[in-house]
């Protein structure tokens, strides 16, 4: 099921250490049984893409990985922390988990740099000048060095999403979660955001991406999960999933989207 040494992105090697361990995860909203039992392990430096039809529970699954949604049953272990343990300090855990949203969710009342500096300064990791320096480095990394003092409202969608990525990198997370990071973008801006994600992959960031970009999933993923009806229906390398799909439901899904 897991391929420990897939070489998909320029010499990056997936580690042996398990970063995310999900066992029998279920989630209901009232009577709506959204996740019906998910078990999976994600390793250090692994890039996992989650695909599947709308309403299959992809976002819910991703949000359970930083407890934006509480699991109804099962366990979710991230790094050394058990997220389903009520004793765990979730705010501490979340510092190690970066999350990027479809709608960017930049803070409109702050400048770009202030968006990025907020968490390190508020949580006492960096002083203001240090955080400012870090913000500038991160902006440089996503190609927006000149936008530090701009307001989010003045940026294009692609620029906003790159700032959001820089913001979630500010706490030096061990893992990054992306929920359809390019779905709200005009087509011509998708590329610049994917390039940033590609760079992160090359640097060895562990990532889980919910995406509708099948070509990008094939290119960047070490492993692809196909979800349907709140379950992982099939999991494998991009070539296994896209070239040799086993389950009829995956075959049907691919025939529609490819």
């Amino acid at each position, binding site marked *: 099921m897991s391929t420990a040494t897939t070489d998909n992105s320029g010499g990056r090697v997936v580690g042996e250490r398990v970063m995310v361990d999900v066992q029998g995860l279920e989630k209901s909203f009232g009577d709506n049984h959204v996740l019906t039992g998910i078990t999976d392990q994600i390793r250090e430096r692994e890039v996992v893409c989650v695909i599947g039809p709308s309403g299959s529970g992809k976002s819910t699954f991703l949000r359970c990985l*930083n407890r*934006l949604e509480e699991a109804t049953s099962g366990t979710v272990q991230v790094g050394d922390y058990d997220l389903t343990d009520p004793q765990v300090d979730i*705010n*501490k*855990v*979340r*510092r190690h*988990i*970066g*999350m990027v*949203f479809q*709608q960017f*969710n*930049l*803070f*409109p*009342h702050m400048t770009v740099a202030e968006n990025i500096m*907020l*968490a390190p300064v*508020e*949580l006492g990791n960096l002083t203001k000048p240090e955080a400012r320096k870090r913000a500038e480095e991160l902006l440089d990394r996503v190609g927006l060095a000149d936008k530090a003092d701009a307001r989010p409202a003045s940026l294009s969608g692609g620029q906003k999403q790159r700032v*959001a990525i820089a*913001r*979630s990198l*500010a*706490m030096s997370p061990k893992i990054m979660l992306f929920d359809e990071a390019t779905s709200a973008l005009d087509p011509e801006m998708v590329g610049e955001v994917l390039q940033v994600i590609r760079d992160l992959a090359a640097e060895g960031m562990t990532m889980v991406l919910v995406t509708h970009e099948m070509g990008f999933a094939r290119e960047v993923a070490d492993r692809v999960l196909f979800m349907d009806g709140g379950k992982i229906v099939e999991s494998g390398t991009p070539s296994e999933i896209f070239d040799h799909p086993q389950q009829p439901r995956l075959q049907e899904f691919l025939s529609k989207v490819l």
Partner: protein
Amino acid sequence: MRALLAAFATLGVLLLGLAPAATASGTDGPATTPVTAAGTEASGSEAGGTGETYVIGTDTTFAPFEFRQGGDLVGIDIDLMEAIAEDQGFEVEWRSLGFNAALQALDSNQVDGVIAGMSITEERQEVYDFSEPYFTGTVTLAVNEGDESEISDWEDLAGKQVVVKTGSISEEVANERQDEIGFEVTALDQTTTLVESVKSGNADALIDDYPVIAYGVQQGSGLVTVGEQVEAGDYGFAVNQGQNPELLEKFNTGLQELRASGEYDEILNEYLGAEDDGVDPSSFWGLIVTSLPSLLNGLGNTLLVTGISFVLAMVLGLAFGFMKIARNPVLRGIAVTFISIFRGTPILVWAFFFYFGLPPLIGVPVNIWVAGVMTLTFNGAAYIAEIVRGAVQSVDPGQAEASRSLGLGHGKTMQRVVLPQAFKMMTPSLINQLVIMLKDSSLLLAIGFAELLYQAQQIYAANFRVTEVLLIAALLYFIAITALTQLANYVDRKVNR
């Protein structure tokens, strides 16, 4: 958010700061002792003499005998008593209580004497000892300026509409002469209403106490007194039977001296005669000059009570607003109850309740400022709580999710991410609420709180220039609200770039 709170604090301070400036004109007036019903002011002779101090009760507004001008208690009774005190070497401590309350206070010896434009009657002589008459009351006929050629005396009333005051001597006089001359009589309950009926043309003439009408004429009420005056009893100063004989003695002696020296006539002339020094009070400019100190005094109290209430309502409103969206059902229940009670009931009910209803429950009198502030604060807080709740809930939930995903806790997320955006959204509604509270503060006149409209009422109760005084009051409200709105918008722009 901190910046915004600071801005509101500044606004509050500014409001508070405005008030003393406006009240500086009247020292002993309702500004410092807005409870006119308990107003106490000491004055008297510098000559000192024995230095004996007497507490004298009087009416609140019965111009020209006693009324407030620029916040000061003035009038024939007041001036006369103080002149006598100076002449006889004693001090007067005034209690401006209202006519009936003053007599009650005299009954229970809480005051030493009462001077309140009171007629000497046989009934009253059974319980009080009266001084020599210091004024002979008369009843007069009055008509609109310009009508005096048509109605110049009582006989001209044939076939006319005449208004009188219910239960007064004027009504008796009218009834006596009605059949003989042949006019229609309508009894109304207040002098102001009589004057307005004549001015509006609903009645052709009125019959009422001469001094009251003459003072109004002097102040530009637009009427003129005509015809022969009818005697209606003497006014006297009263002490309790057998009590304070020496005070009565001093009053009588002093009165004689004033009459001899001509000072008595001067005092009467000041209130009843045509004024010849300074501005003519019957002109519009004169009205402004004489009424503005009182009105500004009232405006000061309006701003002060609004300012204090708004600051407190912000604090309470924020608290209840947050409680309403809290996870804890008990907190939510408390907030929902508070908000629905104060949004679901008229302000006036609470003004009466806190001022008149609460004291029997808690066994202590409630200061009128406390009652006024509570009324405006609780009502304002209920609306502000809804404004806060609405604004917080209208912030995109994705904002809080992004913040929490960064590892910021609930408190920090609220403080740094949600509230700044919520405040920005709620500022226009808060400014609006401030303006509403300022306007609502005028309702406090119903409990006798000396705010702007109350002062206006007091003024036209004495000079009967209802329309002009109300227009001046409206203009003052308008200026204050416009200035406040501009200021708030300016602060808003500075803080919420």
